[in-house]
């Protein structure tokens, strides 16, 4: 059983549509559509490990600004983004907070922290 999946490369404005042929046990057997080798590396990573840095906000208390912007220190698997958002929705932070300070540590035991991206 083989399956083709398509990945759009974000490496440059050309946006090549790269097709990967996936064989048994999810092995990449073929790839075409990329115009350069950066595209190849990108498509492999995007297939094997689709993860994103998550940026969001958390609510504040005792502060005139209702929100503090935050981000994850490392990419989070796409499938875990929503869980991360729910975890953030439960948090309240109060000033003072320094940019870079951890507001949620080791999210879902993944080794990923959520840090402040602004002073509060």
């Amino acid at each position: 059983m083989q399956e083709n999946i398509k990945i759009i490369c974000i490496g440059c404005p050309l946006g090549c549509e790269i097709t990967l042929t996936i064989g048994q046990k999810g092995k990449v057997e073929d790839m075409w559509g990329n115009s350069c080798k950066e595209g190849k590396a990108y498509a492999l990573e995007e297939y094997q490990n689709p993860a994103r840095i998550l940026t969001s906000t958390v609510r504040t208390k005792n502060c005139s600004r209702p929100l503090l912007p935050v981000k994850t220190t490392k990419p989070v698997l796409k499938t875990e983004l929503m869980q991360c958002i729910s975890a953030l929705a439960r948090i309240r932070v109060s000033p003072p907070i320094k940019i870079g300070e951890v507001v949620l540590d080791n999210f879902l035991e993944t080794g990923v922290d959520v840090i402040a991206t602004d002073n509060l």
Partner: protein
Amino acid sequence: MNLQGMDIDVAVIGAGPAGMAAAIKAREKGAENVLIIERDTRLGGLLHQCIHNGFGLLYFGENLTGPEYSHRFTEKLLDTGARALLETMVLRISGEKEITAVNRRDGLFTIKPKSIVLAMGCRERSRGNINLHGTRPAGVLTAGTAQRLVNIEGFLPGKKIVILGTGDIGMIMARRLTLEGAEVKAAVEILPYAGGLIRNEVQCLHDFKIPVFLQHTVTKIYGEKRVRAVDIAALDANNNPIPETKRTIECDTLLLSVGLIPENELSTAAGIKLDPVTGGAVVNEARQTNVEGIFAGGNVLHVHDLVDNVSWESEIAGEYAARFAGGKKPPAGQITLKAGRNIRYVLPQIISGKNNVDLYLRVREPQKKVIIKMGGIQVGKTIPGVKPSSMIKLDLSAEDQQKFKRNEIVIDCLTKGD
């Protein structure tokens, strides 16, 4: 500080990334008294509401969020000893470089700096700028307004959202609203391709399986007090809606992400000549406008794709503003650059022919394997692909410019081999 009659070398209007970069550079290049004037309560401009990442990849080689990118510059700005005047609105600039401004502490006052950098940024096109039929209920807002509501003020503008336009802010809001629990029912784009950066198309629309309707538009809005639904339809070759393709989408919010316009009311009143295509001033390589001693940088000059380019460009304006304040005039422009095949605009519009310059270009349509020719001579290497949403930065050496035979040089974007 007593502002009236204060001795100022360089005054910068607007403290977004453009204004901060210009003020820092002006200080570094020896301007003694640099004053930056900002109407908001904080330095940073629009970066505060841009909480997503993707900033600084070129400038810092790091993937920063908007607030982080801003923070780097605010720290540096304060270190350089430039002075910032917050919650102060500039009302008028005269052709003689006299600035009239107002704030609560000082009231109405005027200052006369030796040079000025315009860095007022841009604003979004709103419903008034485009043609939308139907009722005028609540729930129609620009993507940038929604961004401020969600990211700064902390509430969701609606639950069921349709976005008209796939500019970067629109795509970024599609992701943000989805993460915050809203349902984005459609992203509707008039063009046959998404309007913003590829990275946003993939990570904001595809990642969240947001239905995208290309070559479509919103033809009607329903609802009395609040938006209830919109009609969308496919467009024919002449961009007219095809009635048979009409469908109604239930929603409570319509976000408009249909383009940005440089904020130039102040500039026009100062007698500054604008470029009808960019909506910003016509400038030379020093980023000086036709009014001597008034410079401009960032989105007030042309709408940029990346904030990194905003910073670089404004540093040029800041540097030459500092020199001007010190009595040195920028190189006089002699060569006018004109947009040719598949070029929408080029900036700066005027160059002296004597210095290395970075040109910023935008194309009209996507094109593959392109070479750029100036006055028939190829400049730079072959570029794999270009898109209207991504600016092209081109290094033009003084040597290249020696080859130009005329005072008017046409720039063409050609397919290699043609």
